């Protein structure tokens, strides 16, 4: 695919550019599609397994498509001692998914993160690019209503 070739060339068509290449592809697609991964390997003339090894080692990469909105529940230490896990449990229950999964209707993907650096606002949930702090179970359910 042409757009993939462009990205690969942007980083000098070198294997050492693999991480930023994957980051750019994911930025466009929201995840790393199978064809994309094989195209990258072909462009760089390296085994597909090399690309998968990186794509599965780093947490930032995803191999399956995501819902319309991504929910990141912070489970960093500050958020943990202020009840982050309770919020995660509640979301899992109300949305009927486990952490890492997407709801049936494709509305939300729920994941955990370890600290987003807003610890003063713990517990924190990041939905798409919006930070929501000082939450409890009731507030987080309220907040979800804003995202269709």
């Amino acid at each position, binding site marked *: 695919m042409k757009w993939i070739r462009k990205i690969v060339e942007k980083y000098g068509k070198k294997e050492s550019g693999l991480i930023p290449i994957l*980051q750019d592809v994911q930025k466009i697609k929201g995840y790393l599609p199978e064809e994309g991964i094989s195209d990258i390997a072909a462009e760089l003339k390296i085994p597909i397994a090399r690309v998968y090894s990186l794509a599965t080692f780093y*947490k930032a990469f995803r191999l399956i498509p995501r819902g319309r909105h991504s929910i990141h529940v912070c489970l960093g*230490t500050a958020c943990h001692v202020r009840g982050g896990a309770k919020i995660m449990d509640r979301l899992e*229950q109300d949305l009927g998914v486990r952490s890492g999964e997407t709801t049936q209707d494709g509305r939300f993907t729920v994941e955990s993160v370890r600290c987003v650096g807003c610890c003063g606002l713990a517990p924190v949930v990041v939905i798409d690019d919006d930070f929501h702090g000082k939450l409890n179970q009731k507030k987080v359910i309220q907040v979800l209503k804003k995202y269709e």
Partner: protein
Amino acid sequence: MKKDHIQVWVCSGSTCVSKGSLTIRAVFEQEIRKHKLSDRVAVLAGRCSGTCNRGPIAVIEPGHIIYQQLTPEDIPFLVKEHFLKGKPVQRLRTDVSETKTMIPTLMEIDFFKHQQLVVLRNRGRIDPDKIDEYIALDGYAALAKALTSLSPEGIISEIEKAGLRGRGGAGFPTATKWMLCRQADGNPKYVICNGDEGDPGAYMDRSILESDPHAVLEGMAIGARAIGAQRGYIYVRDEYPLAVERVKTAIQQARHYGLLGENIFQTGFDFDVEIIRGGGAFVCGEETALMASIEGKAGRPRSRPPFPAEKGLWEKPTNINNVETWANVPAIISRGAKWYASLGTEKSKGTKIFSLVGKINNSGLVEVPMGITLREIIFGVGGGIPNGKRFKAVQTGGPSGGCIPESMLDLTVDYEALTQAGAIMGSGGLIVMDEDTCMVDVALYFVSFLVEESCGKCTPCRVGLQRMKEMLIKITEGEGEEADIERLEKLARVIGSGSLCGLGQTAPNPVLTTLKYFRNEYEAHIKQKRCPAGVCKKLIVYTIDPQKCTGCGVCVKSCPVDAISGEKKQVHVIDQQLCTRCGSCQEVCSFDAVVIQ
């Protein structure tokens, strides 16, 4: 910005931005224009002042007047009152001290009074996207001095006399590292800034990169000169998009001004910096893993020696320092080693930034001189524990650190004292825990974190931590046996001594320190099948206190499994068969009627 302007610094750190400070700045600008005050009042983007839980924040200078928790609706009124009538708006002024009195200015607030700003010297005072403002406050003067009046050895000698030690965790003397790399054979040489900041609950480095990126660039350029490097990399973790943007802008501006690039200050010194975004793996903060990651590989640590100073990035001599370490360098070169060495203790010099978070009144970033006690930080700067709860422990050093009990709060903050207590200085997270925090649960939390983050290369770490996690789960579920404590201790020793990198070597610390200082909590879980803090779900029940329940029905609505019943205005009851122990009824009850047993 003209010097005689009144300045409105609206914080543009991540936390304040997330709470809408960009809109607030825009409304400020609009109102100032509307009232034709533009030639008198300048609205500026300030850097993080550290009181993030009070955001969005604006500071008015001169006068250090701080307005907190602003909303866009507050601004028209504020501008009218403060700038037209000259009356500061009391309602919006800060109240961060435990005394709950009105406090007039920034420096009189407890939160700031005990702090000493070296690294955060430009805190709240410059717009990070404008290199001119950094330069106006003597920015890049240290680089000029280093290039024109010091030899590379002279620079290293200043850093040595200052006694600077690495802020990334282990506290290795920075000058020694630089000298080793300078003397190593091989060309080219590299410098790296470690901005991976993996410790959960800590955000010092993020704040520095976002609000004073030039301080890091300047420090790296000085270090590169000392070592003989011409190229630098800043590795920033994936979760910090704003930091990446700010650093990119700073690099462009510095290049434009000739402060990066070729022949800097006409001295023949060439140096340039590239930014690398991490892939979101905790272990990539470890230096050898980080370098593998820059090379485009999976970030798995390798054994040392060879150390990066001899064989680092692409097998070339490399010096890697933490963000905060680099940001200290310009201050040392400008103000001199003697001044710097006068701060702190005999072996730990200068200041340290902590992210003071958790169960604490004033949470945020604090920069304090080394040698201050933990008690002063928590009860002086931090204003103690909220809601009249009792302090239980403070966790330092992230997943490699430990939990320090109340009896040891007079411990001074220096590398040796903290290590001796079984914790470590670490990168600067201070997570405060109160009586409602279960220490077995905390140990399980860190071990689970490390199980996820272990790269899997060596067996003690990969398998040992997994077994440790299973044992801790067993204990928190009330299935523990007395022999488990000894098993945990034994396993901890094996993991600690047998692992390949720092991740596994320090992984047992949270378990060992909680076992050492809070053994009674483990015993309560094991022998009495009880969680004293009321956290471990399998060992607690929620009930409603009939004395306190007013029958308002709020809990009924909040319960996700319809386990609560009761007529309006009658005492409610929880059906223990249905209850999932999620605790949402307790969160919403205004009468403290939901209790844990």
